[in-house]
């Protein structure tokens, strides 16, 4: 990973935690308010390919972790960005009031990812043009991808029965 990028990242932003877990990998932990500015900083540095926006539910800590994976297409003049390197930008938001600014203005393909996370985790994205349901048809009291949503209980309640599977009952 480019040393200069890490230095300029930590000098530009205060509250970042930058790690290099692997040679071609950079993990950046940013506070919620800094996400957009870090993203636009990285995009300016040639990391113009947003792989995905993901969300992890850390229920015990009472937080959602939003994960942005970036890399470079490697077509820009800035040769510093190597397409083989990925940057994983993470931010933690509270589980009770999960809102975060939408990143559509920077990356157009973030739109369906944010829609999906809104639907499956219940995270609100401010400035998103259509936070309408993407996949699901029914309404769920708890968004289904949260850790406290019990699919087996749900299946039993709504589809009547759950086929008996002996081995699964032991719950390993």
């Amino acid at each position, binding site marked *: 990973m480019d040393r200069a990028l890490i230095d300029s990242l930590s000098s530009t932003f205060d509250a970042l935690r930058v790690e290099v877990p692997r040679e071609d990998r950079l993990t950046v932990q940013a506070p919620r308010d800094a996400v957009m500015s870090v993203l636009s900083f990285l995009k300016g540095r040639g990391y113009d390919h947003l792989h995905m926006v993901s969300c992890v539910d850390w229920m015990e800590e009472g937080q959602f972790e939003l994960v942005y994976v970036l890399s470079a297409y490697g077509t820009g003049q800035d040769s510093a960005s190597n397409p083989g390197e990925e940057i994983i930008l993470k931010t933690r938001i509270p589980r009770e009031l999960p809102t975060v600014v939408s990143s559509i203005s920077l990356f157009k393909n973030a739109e369906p990812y944010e829609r999906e996370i809104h639907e499956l985790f219940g995270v609100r994205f401010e400035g998103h043009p259509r936070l309408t349901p993407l996949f699901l048809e*029914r309404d*769920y009291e708890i968004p289904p991808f949260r850790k406290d949503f019990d699919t087996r209980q749900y299946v039993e309640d*709504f*589809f009547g029965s*759950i086929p008996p599977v002996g081995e699964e009952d032991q719950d390993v």
Partner: protein
Amino acid sequence: MDRNQLVKWLKAPAKMGHKYSLHAVYFCTGCGIIEVPPSITARWDAERFGVLPTATPRQANLFLITGYVSVKTLRAIIRTYEQMPEPKYTVGFGSCPINGGMYWDSYNTIKHLDRYIPIDGWIAGCMPRPEAIFVAVTHLWTLIDKDMADGYKRYRKHYAAYRANQEKVLRGLDWPPLFPVEEQ
């Protein structure tokens, strides 16, 4: 002469037509659709048996439900099924429509498809091979011969129960009942 025999003879061409001209709705309900193109093309050639995909449910009389059925697809399946002219036959393809298959604990897939529409036959397996489709078709022929492929009659008879099941999962259907539902 026996009157039943006469009726039988008069109905024979129709039965032959139903048997040897099974036109299937082309509806990719799940991943089972991956074995449908091979079976209708050069290697396996389902047209030998008169099985042909059709573009719209109005022209079809066979509904091959290929693979798992999510809640959103169930709505489309019921609409498609109700649009098909009678007599119509349904075959569930793959393990998932039978009892949920490997998605037995998924919150978004239907576990027992035969609670929502009547099914005349099942093809088990994940993924069933194209030959399995042909076995199903030939089996359906014998069922038609014996008047046992009567899913559409069951649907008519027990429509109230089917409709209730559909409404339970889909939370309100936005189309009127196909048959008059009498209060029990």
